[in-house]
């Protein structure tokens, strides 16, 4: 059982954690001095000092990269249990729960420069060992690589590679490796670099520098995880080598990453390239809009461009659009990388959290992605008419999306800017005579649409069959007709926070409920992972979760994924919002 390691924060698959030694070790971090190797049993039998405070690598027969599976199977032995911080040496073939606090990936150095190996081996081990244990990749860490490794789920590194490279006269930075003789400058802030010139800089300096550069890179990773912005950093780092870019691409296509990507995140994302289009958060939003959303307010859609200001509704341009539409049509924003954002979901993560380039030039990939999203969207809805209130550079998108659809398109802004008065007048005119919906209808649509997005198609109507909305945008509260509060909109994330009554309706509704079974206790504030008996594997960080146990019924927001809360022995699984004793 894991007693000496705890995950304290997550950013997708990356984690902050602590190895609980006398002098606690923050992770991702360097394990060097905190590690004791009990030794290799290829040489002789080994023993363990169970009183050591260090993280002890248990006696091992390590298999280097390339060791045939039959050999591994023959020498794979059970792991002894100690009441001390221990690590077991494993490979993708021998990784499983061995009861240790940490796991050492044998042969880790071989995954360097190999995108497929980085993803296949590190992820394979990460998935085979408990999520609340630390993964140590020995002899591998370089300043350039650590961010990718942490993103793949690694927690522990060492300075071995950096030191050896320094001795070899290889100068490491987050950009990569240079030979000392190729340096005309010392592109680093460390003391060794600031107090030398390329002429005087020797291999001792290079070792000092490499370790400082590695520490800085690891600290950057920790800071970024803390901020929930490791991915943005990685997308920049992926320019440093094509195999780094390839590793991210490969990771993007794994279930591993999907399972570890939160529903919402309190951090902005920088969307400046096609790598962003592949992000799980972006794909998930597009997917849910396409499959779950249904337009309730009007049979006319007005397509408008997104705004740099977020949420769009707060921007001057959308203020003008709202004025011209005047409750007579359904506003749908077109944007890269998200695709289509119906007006009800403008607050919903990541619709108000991304920051994108606004030069007005679209790449073909963006045109394709947005057009495809729009086509899927329009096919799923039942609009009678589409008003394209978009500038000329959006025209190819709308045309491509609608060419196979039998939908009348009215162009109101493609000759002038959509914010020009003449364009706004044309929009107003196009909507002349159209019936106006009421503000209440709009509020109801927001609550129900978010419910559809969050809980599944049809959830909005099922959970909020009778509905009375109170308070003001964006802090809407959803009540039943009898006055009971069912849910509230969380303005930062554009999601619904359910009350107990709301949770019960979710259970009763004909959509999948994300539930977890807990032990016989009444949670207060939070549910700890050991208290979770079982949890729906579909639960993602940030999801609403219903907790049921012999003594309590509760609702809250997940801080672990379902598989993780079911398997973890430490850490907070969920922040409980409401609880009721049974």
């Amino acid at each position: 059982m894991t007693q000496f390691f705890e995950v304290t924060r997550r950013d997708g698959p990356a984690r902050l954690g602590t190895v609980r030694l006398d002098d606690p070790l923050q992770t991702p971090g360097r394990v060097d001095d905190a590690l004791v190797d009990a030794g290799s049993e290829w040489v002789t039998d080994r023993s363990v000092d169970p009183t050591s405070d260090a993280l002890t690598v248990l006696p091992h027969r390590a298999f280097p990269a390339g060791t045939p599976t039959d050999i591994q199977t023959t020498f794979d032995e059970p792991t002894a249990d100690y009441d001390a911080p221990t690590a077991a040496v494993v490979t993708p073939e021998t990784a499983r729960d061995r009861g240790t606090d940490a796991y050492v990936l044998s042969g880790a150095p071989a995954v360097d420069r190999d995108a497929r190996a980085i993803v296949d081996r590190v992820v394979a081990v990460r998935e085979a060992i408990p999520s609340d244990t630390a993964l140590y990749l020995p002899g591998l860490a370089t300043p350039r690589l650590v961010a990718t490794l942490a993103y793949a789920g690694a927690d522990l590194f060492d300075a071995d590679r950096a030191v050896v490279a320094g001795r070899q006269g290889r100068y490491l930075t987050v950009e990569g490796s240079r030979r000392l003789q190729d340096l005309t400058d010392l592109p680093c802030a460390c003391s060794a670099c600031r107090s030398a010139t390329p002429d005087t800089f020797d291999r001792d300096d290079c070792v000092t520098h490499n370790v400082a550069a590695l520490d800085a890179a690891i600290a950057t990773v920790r800071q970024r995880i803390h901020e929930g912005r490791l991915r943005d950093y990685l997308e920049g780092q992926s320019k440093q080598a094509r195999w780094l870019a390839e590793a991210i691409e490969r990771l993007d296509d794994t279930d591993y990453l999907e399972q570890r990507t939160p529903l919402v995140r309190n951090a902005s994302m920088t969307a400046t390239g096609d790598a962003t289009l592949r992000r799980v958060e972006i794909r998930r939003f597009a997917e849910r809009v396409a499959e779950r959303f249904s337009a309730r307010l009007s049979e006319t859609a007005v397509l408008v461009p997104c705004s740099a200001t977020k949420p769009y509704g707060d921007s001057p341009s959308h203020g003008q659009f709202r004025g011209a539409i005047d409750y007579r049509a359904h506003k749908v924003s077109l944007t890269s990388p998200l695709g289509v954002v119906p007006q009800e979901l403008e607050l919903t993560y990541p619709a108000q959290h991304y920051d994108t380039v606004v030069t007005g030039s679209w790449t073909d990939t963006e045109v394709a992605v947005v057009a495809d999203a729009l086509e899927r969207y329009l096919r799923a809805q039942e609009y009678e008419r589409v008003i394209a209130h978009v500038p000329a550079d959006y025209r190819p998108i709308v045309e491509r999306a609608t060419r196979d659809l039998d939908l009348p398109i009215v162009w109101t802004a493609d000759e002038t800017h959509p914010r020009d008065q003449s364009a706004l007048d044309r929009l107003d005119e196009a909507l002349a005579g159209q019936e106006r919906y009421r503000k209440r209808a709009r509020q109801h649509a927001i609550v129900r649409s978010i419910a559809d997005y969050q809980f599944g198609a049809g959830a909005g109507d099922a959970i909020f069959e009778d509905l009375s909305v109170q308070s003001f945008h964006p802090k809407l509260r959803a009540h039943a007709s009898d006055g009971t509060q069912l849910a509230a909109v969380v303005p930062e994330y554009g999601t619904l926070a359910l009350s107990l009554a709301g949770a019960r309706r979710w259970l009763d509704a004909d959509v999948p409920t994300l539930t977890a079974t807990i032990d016989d206790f009444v949670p207060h504030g939070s549910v700890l992972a050991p208290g979770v008996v079982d949890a729906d594997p579909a639960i993602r960080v940030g999801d609403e979760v219903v907790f049921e146990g012999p003594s309590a019924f509760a609702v809250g927001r997940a801080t672990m994924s379902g598989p993780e809360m079911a398997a973890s022995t430490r850490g907070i699984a969920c922040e409980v919002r409401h609880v009721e004793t049974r």
Partner: protein
Amino acid sequence: MSQGRPDATNAFNGVMREIRARNDEQYDPREPIRVWTDEDLTPDGVRTSLTAVLNTGGCRWARAGGCTMCGYVAESVPDGEVASEDILAQIDAIAAHEADALDEPAPLVKLYTSGSFLDERELSGATRKAIVERFGDRERVLVESLPEFITADRLDPLAAIGPQIDIAVGLETASDRIRQECINKVFTFEEFAAASEVAADADVGIKAYLLLKPPFLSEREALADAVESVRRCADHAHTVSVNPTNVQQYTLVEDLYHADGYRPPWLWSVASVLERTADTDAIVVSDPVGKGSDRGPHNCGECDDLVARAIEDFDRRQEPAVFDEVDCDCEQTWKEVLDRERSYGMVLDA
């Protein structure tokens, strides 16, 4: 033959057979596999040597699977049987090569077989005798064998011919565990020591061959094992040859090497073994095959020739001071690797 972990032997043999099956080369049974001349240190001083690898049908152990680092089985004849007359034809070829290469016959003749010269299934007693007799005028003849075939009845006829007979034994390591579980070689140190007694009784010398850096060991573990093995061998052999691993085709070691899980030892490690065991009674030598190449023992590429020359110098003079003369930045890298490389974190200096 020891049976410490038959499961391991089975697994290794299975894997090795698969690896070797990738090879489909064939050899002419009337040609030796290799032949060359050199200078060697013997108990009587430095002598010109004629060395040959005979094709005797190859190592029977290798046919079952064999050692993890050895690819010589690949260089054997298809059906594993070489007729006596073919062997003698090989001897003719060896002699012809010598006549071309040397002005006068080499006092030292070394005949390797990638198996056991004393194994009846490879060579009959008559053939063995005929071969040694072909070199009856030489000072010393060395042949190769596993300990189990070193018996008085096989030694005496040869010892009687004239030249001093030496038996080369591929002990690899004094550690029975490493020998069995990293190398997949299945005799014990005790068996080796006993065979050495038998040889001494027959006035036959023993030259022990050690492997520097079997797979699965870190550089430091490999170095420590080699030093310890030399020391333990010294009582049982007049000469110890330390052979740093080179990556041979169709071996387990090659699979690890291709997967970045194996690096041949540093030449600094070879030098270190020699330097640290210079005080033993035996002659300790090393002839690093493939030195300086990526598949052979190597340093940084800058100093490989220099260190290799120092080793060669040591081989003749047994003078550890030769290593004081060589110096390179990469010695620090090697020391760092010794300090830091763990068997679970190989290869550290890729």
